[in-house]
């Protein structure tokens, strides 16, 4: 037995690949690249599925500019700004990561620690922003009506801009429907979800009383790339089919339009956010190892390089998610 084992393996063990470096990459780095490639294909599978559904509903897909319009502390319609900020945060944390790797090559422990810490902070800011973005999306902006066949209709003012339900709907005094809880009804029955702010009839009545409010369908005019606004008569026909008031978005219904848009948004940004989260956890572990001097004693900071590859990959995926969800 003894003779068949290569002696150079004794020190490093078989796990490291026996110190051989095919293509000049160490075992760990090579495996990280394998993982990144498979993960890249997973993400492209998701984004391709998103593309399939988007092409399928090309004439009615929600317009991202009208969905993600929130900026913290400012009210109003500001598409893109916040997600641009998130992109910057992630790119910047990629920069601090690559600076950490660079400092690692020169064995400067202090600098590696600092840059690693900044990378983690960047990741946390991104995750927080992501959570905020989700909160806004789930909470909704304007509110809309859902029709019998699942189509969504929204309300716009004279200028074609969307307006919120509370801007024109008046609550009728006779509507007394309250949230069903254990304490006020059957103890074994629960309302499936939080009650919408208004009832369908309230919305329809208020719509009839406000001549300057118009109804808009999901349908996109492919010439102008704007949603089609209905005439008053058509609107009344549509409203006859209304079955519910929708505020916000979840996996079952979406006030901004096609539910699939919400499903893919939650799934893809969620999966990406989970990658960011696990990246942060790994970064923290590596940070501790840097601080206690593991890599100093090992003689190289290759571990930082490997976790850096993963972190940059997460950034890379975000570049594509950003493009396909917000820009294109």
């Amino acid at each position: 037995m003894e003779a068949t084992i290569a002696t150079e393996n004794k020190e490093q063990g078989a796990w490291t690949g026996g110190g051989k470096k095919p293509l000049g990459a160490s075992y760990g780095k090579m495996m990280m690249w394998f993982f990144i490639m498979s993960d890249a294909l997973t993400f492209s599978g998701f984004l391709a599925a998103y593309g399939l559904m988007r092409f399928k509903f090309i004439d009615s897909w929600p317009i991202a500019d009208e969905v993600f319009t929130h900026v913290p502390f400012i009210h109003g319609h500001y598409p893109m700004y916040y997600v641009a900020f998130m992109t910057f945060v992630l790119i910047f944390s990629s920069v601090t990561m690559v600076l950490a790797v660079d400092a690692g090559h020169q064995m400067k422990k202090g600098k590696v620690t600092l840059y690693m810490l900044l990378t983690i902070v960047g990741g946390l800011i991104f995750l927080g922003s992501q959570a905020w973005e989700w909160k806004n999306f789930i909470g909704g902006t304007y509110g809309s009506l859902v029709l019998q066949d699942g189509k969504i209709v929204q309300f716009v003012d004279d200028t074609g801009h969307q307006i919120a339900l509370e801007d024109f709907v008046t609550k009728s005094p006779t509507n007394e429907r309250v949230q069903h809880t254990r304490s006020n009804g059957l103890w074994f029955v629960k309302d499936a979800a939080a009650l919408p702010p208004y009832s369908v009839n309230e919305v329809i009545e208020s719509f009839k009383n406000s001549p300057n409010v118009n109804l808009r369908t999901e349908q996109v005019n492919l010439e102008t790339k704007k949603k089609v606004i209905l005439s008053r008569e058509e609107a009344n026909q549509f409203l006859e089919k209304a079955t519910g008031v929708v505020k916000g978005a979840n996996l079952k219904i979406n006030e901004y339009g096609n539910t699939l848009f919400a499903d893919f948004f939650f799934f893809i940004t969620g999966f990406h956010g989970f990658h960011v989260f696990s990246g942060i956890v790994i970064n923290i572990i590596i940070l501790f190892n840097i601080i206690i001097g593991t890599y100093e004693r090992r003689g190289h900071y290759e571990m930082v390089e490997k976790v850096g590859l993963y972190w940059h990959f997460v950034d890379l995926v975000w570049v594509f998610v950003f493009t396909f969800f917000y820009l294109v």
Partner: protein
Amino acid sequence: MAQDQEHEHESHVGLIWKVFGFLSLVTIVEVALGIIKPKSLHLGIFLGTSWLNWIFLILTLVKAYGIAWYFMHLKYEKTGLRRAIVWTTVFLICYLAALILIEGDYIADIMSDYTRWSY
């Protein structure tokens, strides 16, 4: 090993900041175009989609190149490793995207006959 490292790894800090500046610039251009949406680019069609979408796609690939080549260090890997990674992934993704998007287009075509936008 030690001399090896000193030899190979002079500091790239200047280059890193340059790449960051470049990526930021590209992002700013993308966001500006996304907010303004110039009518001619937004509504003008070229090869099946708008000019604006083509610009976004190309700028995205440029950003991806910057990240992969300079941040992920691919530029300094051996050519064989780089090609094994990049060519494989790019080929598979293009293949997948092409098939699936063509299929989506076809479904939309078929479905449009059965979708009603009036009652």
